[in-house]
């Protein structure tokens, strides 16, 4: 296991004015949901920070709260308590739409079930993030470049349904990196792929990550995949049971 670098800030008192402000920081994150009228605590008091360019794997059995944590870190939902600071912005102070704009600027996603928009071609899927920022002209060039980069040149006009799982995930990768995000969230990116295809996708993801210096947050329960991260946080029952950086 690769030890965490010395610049890791995991103390809650780290100042926002610090020049070494981490890319992603969460403090005392707690999340509950209503289920059948009863309150269900899915995350309890999670605190950690991740420096820019870092690579963290969040692991744990299913139901341990991995996806919920990912959703909160990416601003897809609001926590019951605690806060998330992404690139210096406190997500709790932002409205739903402001968080969306922040995602359009800084965040990329790769999902277990790809989540390509079925009515758009591969190329159009890749173009969406840049187009959302109003950079239509750049979007086309970037899509060409990324299609080539993920080995799908000439397949840009295909719809997701016409692509294999691995191909779809490569398109999803291209989409995730198209706007050069500061943070990439990956939720079980190989979960729906066979081993060989999964390895290709992970290889691509690592390369792109290195090239762009993206901060990477990976949710997985695959130990081999997690082992590639520089730091591992293990969750169980909604709480951190192990943090390799703290170890």
């Amino acid at each position, binding site marked *: 296991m690769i030890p965490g670098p010395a610049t890791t800030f995991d103390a809650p008192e780290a100042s926002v004015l610090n020049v070494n402000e981490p890319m992603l920081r969460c403090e005392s994150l707690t999340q509950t949901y209503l289920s059948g009228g009863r309150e269900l605590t899915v995350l309890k008091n999670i605190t950690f920070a991740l420096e820019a360019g870092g690579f963290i794997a969040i692991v744990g059995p299913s139901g341990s709260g991995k996806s919920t944590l990912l959703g909160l870190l990416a601003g897809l939902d609001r926590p019951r308590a605690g806060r998330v600071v992404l690139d210096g912005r406190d997500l709790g102070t932002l409205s739903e739409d402001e968080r969306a704009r922040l995602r359009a600027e800084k965040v990329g996603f790769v999902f277990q079930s790809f989540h390509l*928009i079925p009515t758009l071609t591969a190329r159009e899927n890749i173009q969406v993030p840049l187009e959302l920022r109003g950079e239509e002209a750049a979007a086309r060039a970037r899509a060409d470049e990324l299609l080539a980069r993920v080995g799908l040149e000439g397949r840009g006009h295909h719809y997701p349904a016409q692509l294999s799982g691995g191909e779809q995930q490569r398109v999803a990768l291209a989409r995730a990196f198209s706007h050069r995000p500061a943070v990439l969230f990956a939720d079980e990116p190989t979960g729906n792929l066979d081993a060989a295809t999964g390895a290709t996708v992970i290889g691509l993801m690592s390369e792109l990550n290195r090239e762009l210096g993206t901060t990477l947050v990976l949710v997985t329960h695959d130990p081999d995949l997690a082992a590639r991260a520089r730091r591992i946080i293990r969750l169980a029952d909604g709480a951190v049971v192990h943090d390799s950086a703290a170890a």
Partner: protein
Amino acid sequence: MPFVLAMAWRESRASLRRMALLVASIAVGVAALVAISSFTDSLQESVREQARALLGADLALGSASRFSPRAEEELKKVVGEARGTDVSRLVRFGAMAYVPRTTGARLVQVTAVEGGYPFYGRIETRPPGGWERLGEAGGVLVDPALVSALDANVGDALALGEARLAIRGVVTSMPGDVAVRSALGPRVFMSARDLDATGLLTFGSRARYEAYLKIPAAEDPLRLALRHRPALAAERVSLRTVSEDEESLNETLGRLGRYLGLVALIAVLLGGLGVASAVHVFIKRKIETVAVLRCLGATGGTVLAVYLVQAAALGLLGSALGVAIGLGVQAALPMVMAGLLPVEVRFAPSWPAAAAGLGVGLWVAAAFALLPLLSVRHVSPLVVLRRPYETDGPKRRDPVRILAGALLAASVVMLAVLEAPSRASGVGFALGIGGALLALWAAAVALSLALRRFFPSRWPYLWRQGVANLYRPANQTVMVVLALGFGAFLLDTLFLVQHNLLRDLRVDAGADRPNLVLFDIQPDQRAGVEAELRKAGLPVREPVPIVPMRILSLKGQSAGAFLAAGTVPRRAPGERRTPRAGPNPWTLRREYRSTYRGALTSSEKTIAGGEWPPPGWPASGGPAPVSIEKELATELGVHVGDDVVWDVQGRIVPSRVAHLREVSWARFEPNFFVVFPPGPLEGAPQSFVTLSRADDPQVRARVQRRIVESFPNVTTIDLAQVQQALDRIVSKVALAIRFMALFSLATGAVVLVGAVATSRYQRLREAVLLKTLGATRGQILRIALAEYVALGLLASATALLLATGAAWGLVRYFFESRFSLPAAQLSATVLAIVALTVLVGLWTSAEVARKPPLEVLRAE
């Protein structure tokens, strides 16, 4: 914005097939709207083009009696002022005609022509050139209907009064001819020179005298009309000009077009419901895409815009399709309306109407799509990570939602006001629609609640399962009831109003009611006519005397002065008619055919004045008491105690209103506007009318022929023939109305399919699970059957209830008629609507039942 457009375009490429329902919903409504308004525009354009031919002259004078010497003088003045004016005179009257060679006799409408009428437009005859020869005495031109009715040939002699005139040909077309007009009596055109020979214009016969003027081009007919109208009006001569005729005809047609437009608007609004339900389904399937877009950083507003643009674009497509269909239908409308229109309508697409249809379609699509679309703003990006936990649902007090609702309501009111003949009726129409929808919605919600509360738990499983579908999550109850119920409500209302109005046109022809009426019997012919009837074995009733008279003065003011004054405040173009002070002109112009008797008949009811005749009179002295029919009293503006002076064939008869009656005009009795007591009129010149009855139509025909041969001036009417003619006219009108209602039904069906589709995916899952658990196809279809029977029954019963209320109100207060419910036909409508629902429902479910479970589970 560019992203929104690009995204909307890319998305709709794939959804076009799915959104076919949205396109169809809008297309049908817009088609109706465009067909009607474009047709109205062409109609008005045709009226403009053919207005002169419609009147046949520049000026037309008309009177219910021979022109008085003063009226003749006035006519001379007009001719003197406009040198070179051509005059043609017409006399129109009803008479009996027969062909001596064949059997039967027929009531005809005779026009005796003197001079060059018509000055504009052409009357076509077969053989051609017949009209030009009409001036030559001794011959007539007739309607083709008369030739077939009397089994005559061109060349046969036609007996008209005492005269025998040769049938020279048939009239095949004439300007301004509303074909149904001749249904009540075929027309006969003759030369005025033969008029005396017929001996028909005897005492008591009704005739209309007209003079047609062709004014030299340098003169302004309207100026002449305005100058001479008051003097002519005082002599009970009306004066028509081309421009005024055109204006009032166009106004009438415009109003008619707008009423039909309202029917079309209902189809458009139904289409709006279809849009809403199509969008609702569409959005449900787009939740994942929306969530991904949100994840990638799209704001709620951006996503909303993407789908709103799509809905609007599809709405535009539907509108364009609707415009095309509408113009196609417009081309077919003249066939449907054949015989009802006074002008020949050329097919000319009206581009303003098409543009308006396009705009309305687009607006309705956007306004109705907005409400269901608003929920995309609340789709959580979290959906991409896992199925959502129970959510609080959309925020109840979302101000944007309230705003969208208000916008929708305002749009409906605005469209109704734009389309309706008046602002008040537009608002009323919108309120009515709102009320109906609210009631349907309430019924649907009440059904869901009631079912949950009083669930029939003892029913067999399949029925329970089907009925339970009505209140379970993602049920379609409200949507189907709204869509289907509204369509049914509209059709039921149209049907009920039509039924009630047409019922009044039905002459009461019960087994003991008279069906043969003979009038214009001169006093010296009474005995002869009665003898003829007896000889044929027909019952003879006491003949009723008829005395023609006119109003000379009303409450001390001369009728001529009223009439002359009435012509002065002609309204400026575009200005609304000011409320009329004083009596309605027609009440003063007309010739009254009054009677005298000492009792009320069975079809009359006293409204005011007590006993008839007043018991004190004539001992009490004073002017003769009269009984006046209540509607006429209103039009005249008279009450019990007011004085009316009559001109009875030149003799002045003062009277005082002593009694008001309500008359049931539908009862076939000799009914009268004005009744005198026995006494004052007995010495006046009078004719008689009598009624009889024969069950066998051949007997009636024989009697008619015998009477006309012996007494040519006596008119006999066979009520059965009148009824047939009325029925023909009515069915023509009804066809035109039904044609419009058809659009609403078509939209209703589209919306129904859409509504059923809203819950289709839910049902698909359920059905597959049931099949996995061992349900057969038949069982699944029976569950669907139970559900759709219940839905159809609820929707159509609620609609019927609402329609009964609406039709009752319309019939009672708008048409001021009696309301009755045709139970049998209505139950048939209810059943038909239930059948339609079940059919559509089963058709959609059949696919569900057919699919193998695995295929569907995989697709999930």
